[in-house]
């Protein structure tokens, strides 16, 4: 059952319109009273000291990188998994080659010690 594309614009507009309308309506009714103390960062009641822009440990960056790689892998896997029967045997094998390359990457990072928190 093909999706009638001509209604797509209507769905799009009502969706965005509904959200924008709610935001506008509530901006009319909600109180808006910013003051410096309210906008200061929440420090469990204490006065915030120093800035949050500090060079923290590189470990975090490493973990972020590893996560992004395997997240993108998932992005490719999911659409393939939905329609892989109709795509025939070649793409089936091709996807496993793709998976195999990423597994090699994972093993390398694991052995290199990128996953433990030193």
């Amino acid at each position, binding site marked *: 059952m093909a999706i009638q594309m001509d209604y797509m614009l209507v769905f799009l507009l009502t969706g965005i319109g509904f959200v924008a309308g709610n935001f506008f309506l509530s*901006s*009319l*009714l909600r*109180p808006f*009273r910013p*003051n410096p103390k*309210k906008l*200061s960062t*929440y420090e469990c009641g204490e*006065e915030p000291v120093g800035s949050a822009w500090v060079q923290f440990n590189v470990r975090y960056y490493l973990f972020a990188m590893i996560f992004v790689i395997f997240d993108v892998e998932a992005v490719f896997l999911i659409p393939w998994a939905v329609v892989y029967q109709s795509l025939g045997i070649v793409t089936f094998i091709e996807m496993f080659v793709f998976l195999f390359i990423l597994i090699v990457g994972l093993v390398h990072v694991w052995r290199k010690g990128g996953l433990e928190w030193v």
Partner: protein
Amino acid sequence: MEKLPIYTQKIPGGGVLLTATDKLMNWSRKSSIWYMLFGLACCAIEMMATGASDYDLDRMGLIFRGSPRQSDLMIIAGTVTLKMAPRIQTLYEQMPEPRYVVAMGNCACNGGPYRYDSYSTLMGVDKAIPVDVYITGCPPRPEALMNGIIELQKRIDRMSLKDKMAIRV
């Protein structure tokens, strides 16, 4: 845009519209007051007991939240000392606007048993932040705390968008 309710009142059918939104706003604010988990002393244990299984606060829509950013009720449960008063003011300021304060226990109302001969207690939390409902008792029973919250809900019911009081400065 806060003048809007006052203008709608002037146009002929506006008053009806205003009271309808008032009722809706107050009903939604009253029945989902999220209180900040902020126990100071003995009353905090009674507040936890009220929040736990026997006297359940959840059935009145009160869920405890960790940070002031997501809560609109601050229950001062315990003695406020001079060292803690500025922190309470900061926390009160950092709560989003329709915010309410319940002073639970004699210590929060006026210093309680520590009113005389104590050099480091603040005689009542209303010297630091505006308070909506005072609950007496040392510590007040869970039913007394729930009664105080019902008083707060009645007070929220009487609020209206047009008068300044609804939106506490």
